[in-house]
């Protein structure tokens, strides 16, 4: 057995474990393209968008031009990249802002994916190319005011009326609701939970903006009201019945989030690292203090570990060996890590840490939503708990 000597080398504080070496040229080029886009189009204005509470809708077409929307889906105008590339794109988008990444997750994984996976050929032809092009914006209506972690308890109902379907109920916390042209709405039917493609200009459909958010402000969050919304018989997604429909969408989106969270954390770490090197107190840079170094090192470890987990799970997804519980592991740990990193970074920046001049408090607030949506930290804990003990502790 030959043994390679370990030699001291220069380390890269931003890619400490050299995770880049695990990526192909193609994946790196996709990553760098999104990184450049975020630097050009998101970072200069994101502080203002957050403060003003707006999502710049014009970004949709620009992102579509690159192939970002539904990028990991095949055919119908989608780019058809591998899962690792999709994940890396999410990392870069969320380095910019969780709201921008949320938009892309919802469009690709929550609105396009169910049509792609469970739709009829006509539905796919009709919707997917326009959604990939950013001409049609989608949203995903699962959660209700009284039905969050337990979506099976939803009260929105679809009933047959001749050939038509008639939907009644309401959905809450729906990302992109007010800017969407189409909503994929999940509702109870006599057969079980089913998905419906609802054009948002259908009579009886209204979207109400949720105001006073202190998180994901550069993202639109809405309530959807369905009041006798009449849809033709072919509006239902034919190929899935039951909760596994929406849950399989969530798995796709959660996969993007476990990569995305690492991006938000990296932005906070970079800000803290550079600030700590420049800010002087007691005549020395604050990076000289052991307490500060410890914070920076904890961030470094969390981010590198998170990225390794993400790339590993990405490879498993591309191999077809990824289990939904693996996604729970990644979502739970990476988002928790990112939130801790953001809070530590916030403290390193002192008073400056509370302003939008730096990205940190914005990410910190955003990550509170990311912690809750797509399965709360607690729900993923219970999924993992059930996976290893065989005991359901949900209720």
């Amino acid at each position, binding site marked *: 057995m030959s043994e390679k000597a370990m030699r001291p080398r220069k380390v890269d504080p931003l890619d400490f474990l050299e995770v880049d070496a695990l990526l192909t*040229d193609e994946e790196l*080029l996709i990553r760098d393209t999104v990184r450049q886009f975020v630097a050009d189009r998101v970072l200069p204005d994101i502080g203002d968008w957050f403060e003003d509470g707006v999502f710049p809708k014009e970004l949709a077409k620009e992102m579509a031009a690159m192939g970002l929307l539904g990028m990991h889906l095949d055919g119908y105008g989608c780019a*058809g990249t591998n899962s690792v590339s999709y994940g890396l794109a999410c990392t870069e988008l969320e380095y910019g802002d969780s709201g921008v990444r949320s938009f892309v997750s919802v469009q690709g994984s929550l609105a396009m994916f169910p049509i792609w996976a469970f739709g009829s050929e006509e539905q796919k032809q009709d919707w997917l190319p326009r959604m990939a092009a950013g001409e049609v914006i989608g949203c995903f209506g699962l959660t209700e005011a009284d039905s969050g972690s337990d979506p099976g308890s939803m009260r929105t109902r679809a009933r047959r009326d001749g050939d038509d379907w008639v939907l009644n109920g309401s959905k809450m916390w729906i990302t992109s609701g007010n800017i969407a042209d189409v909503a994929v709405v999940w509702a109870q039917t006599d057969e079980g939970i089913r998905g419906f493609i609802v054009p948002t200009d259908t009579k009886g459909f209204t979207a109400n903006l949720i105001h006073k958010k202190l998180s994901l402000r550069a993202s639109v969050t809405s309530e959807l009201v369905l009041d006798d919304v009449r849809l033709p018989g072919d509006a239902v997604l034919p190929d899935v019945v039951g909760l596994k429909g929406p849950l399989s969408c969530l798995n796709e989106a959660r996969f993007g989030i476990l990569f995305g969270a690492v991006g938000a954390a990296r932005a906070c770490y970079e800000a803290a690292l550079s600030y700590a090197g420049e800010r002087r107190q007691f005549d020395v840079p604050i990076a000289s203090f052991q307490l500060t170094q410890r914070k920076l090192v904890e961030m470094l470890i969390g981010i590198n570990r998170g990225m390794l987990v993400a790339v590993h799970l990405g490879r498993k997804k591309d191999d077809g060996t990824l289990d939904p519980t693996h996604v729970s592991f990644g979502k739970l740990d990476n988002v928790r890590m990112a939130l801790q990193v953001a809070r530590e970074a916030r403290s390193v920046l002192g008073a400056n840490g509370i302003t939008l001049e730096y990205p940190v408090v914005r990410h910190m607030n955003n990550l509170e939503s990311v912690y809750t949506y797509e399965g709360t930290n607690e729900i993923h804990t219970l999924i993992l708990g059930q996976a290893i003990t065989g005991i359901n502790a949900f209720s």
Partner: protein
Amino acid sequence: MKIAVCAKQIPDPATPYQLDPTTHYVVRPNDQVLDDTDRYGIEVGLQLAAAAGDASVTVFSMSPSGSLQGIRQALAMGADKAVIVDDAGLRGADALTTARILAAAIEREGFDVVIAGTESTDGYTGVVPQQIAELLGVPSLTFARKIDRHGDGIRIERQTSNGYDVVDANPPLLISVTSGAVEPRYPTFKGIMQAKSKPVETVTAADLGVEVAAGQSIAAVEPVPARQAGEIVTDEGDAFERIVALLEQVKVI
């Protein structure tokens, strides 16, 4: 229409350049990126090709191939193929040698329009495009800040120090494009995935029938002198007069 775009792979400007201590040449790592200024030329090429309809865009580059990262970026933006002149004998080639090589490669392929940036980010000689035009015997439309099709030909606005000239010419011709002339597109993901299967031809100077003779050597390299401390003008009511005087002294007003 056959469009030739000259583009260079350079060491990533984000990491500090290293010079070989004996030859003083830039040390070229295996991974080199597309020179940012070339993204404009490629964009112009792609736009002209789209407008012309039946057109091809070929990227010409003289550089060690390395991982081809920079060339793939150009192909991912939409160029159809690339020709790389990779020849150990060309290391440290001067501007005229570079122009002779590129002109020979372009001529061999055939062309209607040659496009180049105005100067590279690592070499900054700023003369290669004009030399290529001269060697190919075609008009050079330099420092283009705007490029349009005009009848059968091309019309550009040439950036000058106090405005711009409008210059027309019919192909074959060469255009040198200023940074900012167009908004370079981001590579598309489909383009990135297709780039791998696009043809990249690697040739040597001998393949092109160009004899390389060292025309220059770099005698010495000096670090930029440290900046002198500035002069601080404290306002005692007459600061503006003293600042005006200082500005006149350095002849900026």
